[in-house]
């Protein structure tokens, strides 16, 4: 712990007016560009993964609290059976509200298939009772048993066969996104390591000279880490910024498509995206430290 503290202190306080590590032209741009591109992809990947998680929650939630009972019976018996069903629901724990779906609502539901002027009242239709759960939740198995005993014509549907695949799918996409981001972070680590190693082998003379004039290993490590991490940081900030702009422009498209409508990243998610440059800085510090220490050991 105190080691980390000292390290950060030296990172902030070491003399900056003389750059002991040279700018090696090409690798500077390579490092900055790579960090930027990786950050961009990381932010986009993370954003999609978070959006999918959000979408899965939303679908799950809207279907979770709703269920329905369908009653099929001749028209003359239907009214009586409906009132029995409503009475049963009234006694069931966890039922917030139970409402008979009226003719107008049914028309509306079927309109896409049958057209708005279809004479629905002319055909025999099952009654539909819509149930809204409270937070307590409904014991569907109990309710189903009771309905089958007292009202065999009733069919209870709690949407589980709908809900599950959707939830599983959305969760899968979200997990896949996270996995991609994790892979990306790992490959960034590898890439920064490689870039640092390339820069070090170009600068092996710098290491020799610094050793010769009595520089402590910590000083050498700090000098390289600073140089490298500042490049990675600049690249990463740029990449994150560009990705942010892309994300801000996104909802305009999705509104027209009507798919991602109103699904937006909330503040916590945005903070998550903002940590991408920070993660890259940590990666860079870690990778450069390793690379410099290995080179110093080889120098002995």
């Amino acid at each position, binding site marked *: 712990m105190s080691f980390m503290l000292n390290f950060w202190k030296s990172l902030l306080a070491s*003399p900056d007016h*003389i750059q002991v590590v040279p700018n090696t032209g090409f690798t500077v741009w390579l490092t900055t560009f790579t960090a930027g591109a990786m950050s961009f992809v990381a932010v986009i990947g993370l954003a999609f993964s978070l959006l999918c998680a959000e979408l899965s929650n939303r679908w799950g939630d809207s279907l979770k609290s709703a269920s329905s009972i369908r009653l099929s019976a001749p028209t003359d018996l239907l009214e009586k059976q409906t009132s029995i069903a409503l009475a049963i629901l009234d006694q069931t724990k966890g039922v917030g509200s139970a409402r008979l779906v009226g003719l107008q609502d049914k028309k509306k539901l079927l309109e896409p298939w049958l057209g708005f002027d279809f004479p629905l009242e002319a055909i025999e239709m099952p009654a539909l009772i819509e149930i809204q759960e409270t937070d307590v939740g409904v014991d569907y198995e109990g309710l189903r048993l009771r309905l089958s005993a007292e009202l065999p014509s009733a069919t209870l549907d709690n949407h589980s066969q709908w809900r599950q695949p959707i939830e599983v799918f959305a969760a899968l996409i979200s997990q896949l996104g996270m996995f991609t981001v994790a892979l990306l972070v790992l490959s960034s680590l590898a890439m920064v390591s490689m870039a640092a190693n390339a820069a070090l082998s170009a600068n092996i003379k710098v290491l*020799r*000279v610094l050793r*010769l004039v*009595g*520089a*402590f290993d910590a000083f050498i490590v700090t000098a390289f880490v600073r140089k490298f991490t500042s490049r990675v940081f600049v690249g990463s900030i740029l990449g994150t910024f560009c990705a942010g702009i892309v994300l801000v422009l996104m909802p305009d498209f999705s509104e027209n498509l009507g798919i991602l409508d109103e699904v937006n990243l909330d503040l916590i998610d945005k903070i998550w995206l903002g940590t991408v440059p920070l993660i890259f800085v940590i990666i860079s510090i870690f990778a450069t430290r390793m690379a410099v220490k290995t080179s110093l050991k080889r120098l002995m």
Partner: protein
Amino acid sequence: MLEISKVSYSYGGNSVFSDVSLSVAPGSFYFLTGPSGSGKTTFINLCAGALIPEVGNIRVFGEETRNMSNYELSQMRRRLGIVHQNCEFLDHLSIEENIALPLTVAGMDNTKERANVLELMKWVGLDSKSNVKPQELSGGERQRLALARAVIMSPEIILADEPTGNVDWEMSQRLLTLMIELNKMGKTIFISTHDLSLIRLAKANVTARTLRISDLKLSQAGADL
């Protein structure tokens, strides 16, 4: 100050030294000579802690190099002025910044030491080139630069590996004069060279001892040379 006892060293079976001992007293002036490939550079590197003897041990300022951590080695190097045979510098820094580099890495880069840098540049005759980059210097200028960088921390011992390797006689004399001046300030000087006339010239001005490497041994050369 510098204690070498029963040291043997070889590069992968190629023996360079066997059972060599030497004790260097503070303020003394040594020349190390021997044919090319006899082990002069190896000897200097052993003394600087860059190489560790296989057998025997080397004590610098009373510490055994074998037991030093990297941190202690760096501390030791701040008290040693080392001039390598092939001088290396930070090519992206100016002459002045290169001379000041030991101060910079030691965090002693304040105004008082800055004055020493300017004085040193004058002393080695590079004051007109303070903003030039090292790769623009001639061989002799590079060696003077290396010497200036080696003495900026006012080290107690100066180890110079062929400091007159690629300079003409006049420049050799100038460099030797600088070394003699340092010795008169009380510094211990250890110079490897195969230039015998340089040794003769030195002996006319200071009490200098000459060591010769031959047959894996170190022997004191006579006054004749």
